[in-house]
């Protein structure tokens, strides 16, 4: 149970980071933390203590195995997360070129 609570704590840290920090790079890191928390949670769902990979081989009776589907899904989700992070970092670099700052309170040309 405690791992799930830690996972939730990680998610909350990420959310806090996105909501409260003023530096663009810190916001991006916060997004990364949220994403890792969700991925971790997904893997934990399919995990069992002292279990093994579900590979079916000859003369082996498998009694206790982990669920492979969440692992496959998390791989996909990590790749997606990489794409989003790369894109946002690229945008952040261009923003720095234009505004000369990473502080979001100073990047406010859009209003209304």
């Amino acid at each position, binding site marked *: 149970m405690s791992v799930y609570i830690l996972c939730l704590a990680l998610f909350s840290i990420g959310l806090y980071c996105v909501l409260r920090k003023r530096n663009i790079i810190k916001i991006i890191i916060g997004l990364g933390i949220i994403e890792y928390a969700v991925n971790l949670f997904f893997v934990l*769902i399919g995990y069992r203590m002292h279990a093994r990979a579900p590979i079916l081989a000859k003369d082996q009776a498998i009694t206790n195995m982990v669920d492979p*589907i969440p692992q496959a*899904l998390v791989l996909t989700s990590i790749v997606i997360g990489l794409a*989003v992070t790369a894109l*946002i970092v690229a945008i952040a670099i261009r923003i720095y070129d234009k505004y000369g700052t990473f502080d979001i309170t100073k*990047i406010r040309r859009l209003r*209304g």
Partner: protein
Amino acid sequence: MLPFFVIIPLGTAFLISLFGKKIRNFADCLANLGTLILLILSFNSVQLAHAHKVLVYKVGSWLPPIGICMVLDGLTSFMLVTVNLVSLLITVYSISYMEKYTDKYRFYTLFMLMLAGMNGIIITGDLFNLFVFLEISSIASYALVAFGTEAEELEASFKYAVMGSVASSFVLLAIALLYSYTSTLNMADISFVISQKGSGMIVSFVAVLFLAGFGLKAALVPFHAWLPDAHPSAPAPISAMLSGVLIKVLGVYALLRIFFNIIGINNITLSVFMFLGAVSMLVGVFLAIGQWDFKRLLAYHSISQIGYVILGLGLGTPLGILGGLFHLFNHSIFKSLLFLNSGAVDYSLGTRDLQKMGGLRDKMPVTANTNLIASMSIAGIPPFNGFWSKLLIILACIQANHFGYAFCAIIASILTLASFMKVQKYAFLGKLSEKRQDLEEVPLAMRLSMIILAVICVIGGILLIPIFKPFLQNAVNVLLLGTGYKDAVFGAIK
């Protein structure tokens, strides 16, 4: 036939990124050809959905629930026609409009990726697959919003990307929880397991997460802050695509599919939908009326009109759902047209500020007239298409004894009319300033797609007459079927 809705846009995106730079006009031709084929296929899918009710394609011929499946039913074919019709007209428009940007082929690559994501969301029958397509189209749209790489565009794109990523995380968390409860990812199978095990607290929690995640993508009012920045900053064809179809597919369609067909709808969810719809409707239109930036005004109206769609669907009665879906189709037509108009004005004048326009009617008759038609459509003046769908929604409200919501809908409609009279007055009527006497009408491709959209606005009402009715009615039936969706899909697999 079903996988082609994803294969064609993905394939064209690949080919355009490969050869677009080397061969001149290759990107234009291939993108238009691709969207044309998609439109023809989606018209074909309407007939198929009408004849067979539900069609299932098993990817790699793995049987569901182990393998991934694609499902075609009435709602799917309705959304496919909406998306592909708008995207064809927008690619035609982009031939001329995107000339002023460098790297036109990159624009088409991203556009096609976004289209692949949207078609994928509509057609998939697997929850995780929906998430993957959601991310494909979202990432493409973040990049497209920043396409001009000016300061405002980058800022808007950053804001959109951060909020969009958080929303996606919520959706993924909801999928993870749902998987832990049902141990399956196939939509029909999830619905089956929930009906067997009963829906406890965890399903309610998942419903809230989905509402937050997809509600943010649909820009319902508490989650709307990104839309008025992101939509005006993109190039005009992309604004039209984002406001016209992206928020509907990513937000409204996904919400409908999950709440009506998988989790199962109940009175609490419906009243949440209605409340969010009414709030979005009023807040959107109040914020819109004070805007002086043409595209920003239109973006706020998108929030307001999505409110109408959600209100109609949230009533849960056959008439309300019909009105909501019909308004979804109509909104995608006239809102794309309005954004294309704003793009045309921007193309000729180089400004989006309403106070700097005036007297464009004489020099740009096509833009002015199509804009007049679209404005009257969105304000709900008979006999244009917007009138019929708003009428249906208001009638459905009264029929269901929600007089307060009907009153809200009428107020929002009047304020919409007021704000579009402002657009007409400042942009197209009045006197042309001296230095703009050499203004010209926009090129043929842009005029063509604006005229076609305007014609659809005028004759849109015929979708309600009996010959064309099945197109909408089949979609309504899928939603009315509710959790009976699983039996229909399992029936089609066997």
